[in-house]
């Protein structure tokens, strides 16, 4: 069976709550069947609105959403057959775990013995066998979260939506739940649309990430591409750590460009600059810049160490480089790098293709 490329399709969707401000602007988004897509963005970027439109709790102001080829704007939420995990779990507090899971099966009139099998299966999937008779209030946050996940999957939906489901958990639990959800997704192959504002969560879990800002998808790509090859300054700054140099393009040729920064010219990879004289912002990941570089690197400069922060496995070094006082380096704690001291001048280098010249925003 071929997997559909556009299992979920947002087609030119606009959404406005008050008729003045567009929360979602001309959204175009295709989600493949069986994919784990994360909508990532700062709060107010429109990602939750998109999820709510998909679930049916909000209607698009303009445009159409298709699920498996059907336009769903006129289908009420309960007929869409979409599983959903809510931010605060939304477990029914007056029902036991069993009854919570039985709810979607009962409304579908599934016979009791079949329903019991499904519930057992769903509970074992989230390793909560034996908790069926507990009330949600008697469970810990993590356990409630698992019940919510189990409940959203128990009726075998084609699509599951998750709205910041791990937001209320502490860090360790959140990380283990991330893997658990990822494994569940891999084992049953359901399509998942996941909303979060936590980039590390998005990077660990997703097949593809849609970065939202200002009601628009800034970039939709796999986690590694998103991190390695951001297409604009917003994505570069939102995902991971980033060193930037603002400057002006002086020359562009042969897949490289020269950018004038603080009286010197940096060689960079032209991503969104087209010609001379354009303002640009160069983005460079901290781990792509090395100290004591080899001569093969085409950018080598000298800077002064402003701050050294010990992080156990690595050391963060803040350097004043080419007028940028916030240039960060991550130096592995190996014996070769013991001479990093505050106030010392060191040489730093990187390859021009790692320095991406993006929009100047």
């Amino acid at each position, binding site marked *: 069976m071929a997997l559909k490329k556009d299992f979920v399709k947002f087609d030119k969707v606009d959404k406005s709550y008050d008729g003045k401000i567009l929360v979602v602007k001309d959204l175009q988004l295709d989600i493949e069947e069986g994919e784990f897509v994360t909508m990532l963005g700062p709060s107010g970027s429109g990602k939750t609105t998109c999820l709510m439109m998909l679930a049916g709790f909000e209607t698009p102001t303009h445009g159409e959403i298709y699920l498996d080829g059907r336009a769903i704007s006129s289908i009420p939420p309960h007929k869409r057959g979409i599983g959903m995990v809510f*931010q605060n779990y939304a477990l029914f507090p007056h029902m036991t775990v069993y009854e919570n899971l039985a709810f979607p099966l009962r409304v579908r009139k599934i016979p009791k013995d079949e329903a019991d099998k499904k519930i057992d299966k769903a509970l074992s999937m989230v390793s909560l066998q034996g908790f069926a008779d507990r009330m949600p209030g008697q469970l810990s946050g993590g356990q409630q979260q698992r019940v919510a996940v189990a409940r959203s999957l128990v009726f075998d939906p084609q699509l599951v939506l998750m709205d910041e489901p791990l937001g209320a958990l502490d860090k360790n639990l959140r990380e283990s739940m991330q893997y658990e959800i990822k494994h569940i997704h891999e084992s049953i192959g359901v399509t998942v649309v996941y909303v979060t504002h936590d980039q590390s969560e998005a990077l660990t879990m997703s097949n593809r990430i849609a970065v939202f800002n200002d009601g628009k998808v800034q970039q939709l790509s796999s986690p590694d591409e998103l991190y390695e090859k951001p297409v604009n300054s917003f994505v570069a700054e939102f995902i991971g750590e980033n060193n930037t140099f603002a400057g002006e393009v002086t020359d562009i040729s042969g897949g490289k460009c020269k950018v004038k920064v603080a009286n010197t010219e940096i060689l960079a990879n032209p991503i969104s600059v087209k010609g001379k004289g354009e303002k640009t912002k160069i983005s460079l990941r901290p781990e792509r810049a090395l100290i004591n570089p080899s001569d093969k690197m085409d950018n080598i400069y000298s800077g002064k160490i402003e701050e050294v922060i010990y992080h156990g496995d690595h050391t963060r070094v803040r350097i004043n480089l080419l007028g940028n006082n916030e240039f960060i380096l991550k130096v592995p704690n190996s014996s070769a790098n013991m001479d990093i001291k505050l106030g010392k001048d060191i040489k730093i280098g990187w390859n021009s293709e790692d320095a991406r010249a993006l929009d100047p925003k």
Partner: protein
Amino acid sequence: MSSETKKILTTDGIPLEVSLKKAERRNKIKAFLLVAPLLLFLIITYVFPIGDMLMRSVDDKMVTEMLPKTFKAMEKWDGKELPEEEVFEAFYLDFRKLVDEKREGKLSTQLNYTKNGFKSIIKKLRRKSKSFEEGNYKEQIMSVHKRWANVEYWKAIKRRAPAFTSQKYLKGMDMYKNENGEIVSVEEDRRIHRILWLRTLEIAFFVTLFCFLMAYPIAHLLATLPMKYSNLLMICVLLPFWTSLLVRTASWMILLQQQGVVNDFFVGIGLVADDARPEMMYNKTGTYVAMTQILLPFMVLPLYSVMKTISPSLMRAGKSLGGTPIVAFWKVYFPLTIPGIGAGCLLCFILAIGYYITPALVGGASGTLISNQIAFHMKSTLDWSFASAMGLMLLAGVLAIYWVYNKLVGIDNIKLG
């Protein structure tokens, strides 16, 4: 080892327990002093009056004290034939004393409660007794009026001998103790109190039901509307609280009377003919309408406070899991509002069951409640002990409802705000 752990000493050698008690005692005294004014207030204004009411409702000392010799003499009387001379003599002596103290009127009132017809014969006895000769009082008293020779009247006097009586309570249920001491119902056409009790329960029940039906959607709106609208709506709900009860009731009178606004409107739109305006006041309809409006906030507020705590995502979850809006409401939302429903209904019912002013003003004859009867006995007949008895029966009824509620729903499930 155990003796060492038993007595832990503080640094200056005082046993820990003693030191703890000392520290706690100050707090306890402080706490008690803080609640003392309220406690005193409650005792004076609540416990004491209720106790007094209880005493008054069973107290029957008045006649016992007025006729001490008579009742002593009556102890030997078997209560079948007319009593012996010594009873008559004792009664004469007691009666003379009362006449001297000008208290025979009270006696006649009291005895008249027990049996009709005492009033006139006591009046007559007072006049005649001035010229009584010593000795053979039986003959002389019996000759005053033929009722004095009737054994039933003497039995009636004897029934007033005990200092305490359940008579008022029986009367409240249209029952009485007959001559043989059996508890029987009064004749069918005189059973007014039972009708009143049933009507009170009926009106309280339906007012609570109407309040619930109207308050539920309002409370839901209040809990789900955006703040700027819900505040306005909340003010609308609370507005009646800021208006005097009398003003509200009077405005209902203006609206509901036969030449009133509502009737004019009905005639205006052609719903009813001008000469067939329905009576909406001075009957049950008026009581229902006005009481429902007045008690509505008491239902809205507990419901609102519970609904406010129900996360909107629960209904969404119910729908996204495949429940139609009705199923999601019935299986998810409604069960979560039960504590509020319980609190609101209990509050409304208890308030309605003892409601007084509104039914008195708009109820007419068929819309009055037991509380109006109590007030009637307090103000008009001055039978305070009967009023007390009925008040206590009302209180017992409320406590019984409370108890049933606790058994069915559980009182800790209640949520008032």
